[in-house]
């Protein structure tokens, strides 16, 4: 079946959508179509990918304006009557074509105080922690760093407050450390002051796009906000926060 693709070609200075007509076979995903264009029509079309199975988070882009993994988006979702547009994620600067500069994310990760385990929780056979205590941390650790949540979060996307807010990906990274049963570091003041938890107004757009189905907002960001509230006593917010104690 013939499809019309409109793919962004260009770099940070200039560019636009370029038309490609491609034969699409049964079962193909958007990334396959991009590869077919690359092999036969545009050898230098830039795109990132690795696993082709939704495990590495390399192939993020916007398909008909929606942030998606191109390796997990099947072509039979689209009708051949309408063109399919593929553009780079909007929140990060374009390097070339579908490849963007995501280095800002790596800088945010480096700012987060590393894991510091409690030596007292170790015996001769290793650390002791129970499955029920690690379940919620394991949910956050499923993150494949596709940055689709970063792309969709309006604080970063529309308001470009990258100077103030680390974004949902790193809020759950913080949550995974703060809720780690062995960790002894305290990051709560920084969650508010340095990482900007107050900028999130719980729209849940990040949760909606997460390919790993991580409950970013409800299980990660809201509990972090509650811990901030608990620490910096604020009677009104506390009523909504439920007044939980600081806990690991």
């Amino acid at each position: 079946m013939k499809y019309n693709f409109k793919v962004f070609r260009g770099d940070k200075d200039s560019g636009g959508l370029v038309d490609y007509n491609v034969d699409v076979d049964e079962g193909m995903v958007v990334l396959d179509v991009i590869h077919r264009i690359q092999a036969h029509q545009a050898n230098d079309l830039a795109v990132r990918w690795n696993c082709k199975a939704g495990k590495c988070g390399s192939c993020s882009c916007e398909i008909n304006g929606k942030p998606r993994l191109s390796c997990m988006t099947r072509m039979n979702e689209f009708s051949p009557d309408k063109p399919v547009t593929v553009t780079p994620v909007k929140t990060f600067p374009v390097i070339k074509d579908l490849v963007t500069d995501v280095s800002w994310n790596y800088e945010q990760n480096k700012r987060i105080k590393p894991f510091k385990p409690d030596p007292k929780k170790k015996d001769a056979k290793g650390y002791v922690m129970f499955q029920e205590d690690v379940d919620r941390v394991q949910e956050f650790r499923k993150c494949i760093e596709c940055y689709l949540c970063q792309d969709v979060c309006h604080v970063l996307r529309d308001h470009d407050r990258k100077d103030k807010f680390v974004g949902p990906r790193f809020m759950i990274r913080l949550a995974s450390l703060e809720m780690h049963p062995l960790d002894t570091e305290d990051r709560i003041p920084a969650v508010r002051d340095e990482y900007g938890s107050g900028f999130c107004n719980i729209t849940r757009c990040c949760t909606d796009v997460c390919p790993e189905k991580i409950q970013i907002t409800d299980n990660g960001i809201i509990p972090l906000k509650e811990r901030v509230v608990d620490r910096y006593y604020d009677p009104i917010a506390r009523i909504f926060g439920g007044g939980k104690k600081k806990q690991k």
Partner: protein
Amino acid sequence: MLNPKEIQTIEHDVVVVGAGGAGLRAAIECSKLGLNTGIVCKSLLGKAHTVMAEGGMAAALGNVDARDHWKIHFRDTMRGGKFLNQWRMAELHAKEAPDRVRELEEWGAVFDRTKDGYISQRNFGGHRYPRLAHVGDRTGLEMIRSLQDYGIHQGISVHMECTALDIIKDGEKVSGLVAYWRETGRFIVFKCKAIILATGGAGKAWKITSNSWEYTGDGYALAYEAGAELMDMEFTQFHPTGMVWPLSVKGILVTEGVRGDGGILLNNKGERFMFKYIPEKFAAETADTEEEANRWLKGDKNARRPPELLTRDVVARSINNEVKEGRGSPHGGAFLDIASRVPAEAIKRKLPSMYHQFKELAEVDITKEPMEVGPTLHYFMGGIRVDHDTQMSRVPGLFAAGEAAAGLHGANRLGGNSLSDLLVFGRLAGVGAADYIRKNTGTINLDEEQVKISVRRATDILNRESGTNPYLVHEDLQQVMQDNVGIIRVEHELKKAIDELQRLKKDTEKVKAPGSSQYNPGWHEAISLRCMMITAEAVTLAALERKESRGAQTRLDFFGEDKEWQKYNIVLRKGKDGNMEVEKVLRTSTSPELERIANSTIEALDAEVAAEKENLKIS
């Protein structure tokens, strides 16, 4: 022509090439030992192949079954490798893996737990006791993220999306590395005293593979060109169950767990064909009727294991034969049926990612319909030949670890032994490099002439007026390897592959990448062709040389294992005339004690270990 003096130059003590499990662990060790350490990788940090590993990491922690011990892990590894493994490496691996797993936990990894709160372990093919530390079916992600998050605070310089092109030498010794930035296409030279190659495998030279674009054998080629030796290259592991349909996912892995949980293999006549393919050696331990196999599934301890659970090489060969003889599934595989065997709810609970994978990518509901599966090229047991203790190749200053190195796995790798390999030998390569640098204090020279040659070879691809399309040369190579150096090998096909490779080498010399040097995948593809050609040639020559079937190498013309061949590993190197040389190298055993352990019966070894543990308690 670019003046080498104008090329960006960075100085490190050691440069680690590759940021998967092996590379990251090596870099962390180098940095801990006080070296100025750089790490380069082709993709972004955290995207290396290691991220895709599922099942787990083997280590005799004994958390689930206290009878486990390094000696038993060692014995399993040697037997799995059909006794071609390097003795010392298998020993080091079995002894050190538990510490490496616990260390990962210290750095933030969160493994699944046992009831009493320790790291849980699961059963896997070839491992006597439950041994694989794991996190659901995403163990690789946990490993790479833990190393990454720890590693970024260790003062390592990370150079992402930077591809290594050639090793520069000062006389015999390593003195630098030429690379280019994928983003800009600009060149960079690292001046360094040591290099650790942790570049992974080369599955992309085949058409059907579970490997990503990064697996183009760069480490093998760089080492080979620099004068190092490759070993055991004939042993390429074909995993029996990869997806075959749709096109977009051809080759993607279907975990062994499906068969472990009761899945059976059928041909297009509905016949459960594995009963026809039970090898002599396994006949005593394998069910020979469906009735008995069904009893095993229901938990009858007297029943023998179903033939679907034979070793990877046997199952892969059988599927291959069914397809060849016209009994394949519509898309050229076999049917893997679990729907009719296990209740839908249990499938979703035990195999969540497989359920998800087939549902999303193939629109197959595995709780209702069978899957279509076929063999897929998965792993390289062979690689760069290194010293067993230092991990240094025969080129002074050049080290290797992980899938890029040879030695631990011999003729066949056990599942779960790769992730532990990465940590054990990644660390040891770091120690080896630090020792080497401490002993070699003299100044080193960066030879500009070598830099020029490397840069020119890369830029020629862009500057040519016209030439062959690199993607099409790659497709051609994949077809040649798939057709002639596949799972079943025979002399005339291997010889044909060698001829075809000569033709493809000529095509590779003429490739042209249109466009600029800025983030140009066509150019990147063209550059990697040279590495794939060297790797493909090494595999083919080694496969031709080994005139027996053992582990992952199956020769139609040399049936079964040959005792005589157990004495040799095959080594390849660049000859003085520039052609690839093949040599049978006599294996030497370093320790009668290790031989004794590997050859003891499991009952005797269990008893020995139990007695040892008892003594330890008394003293």
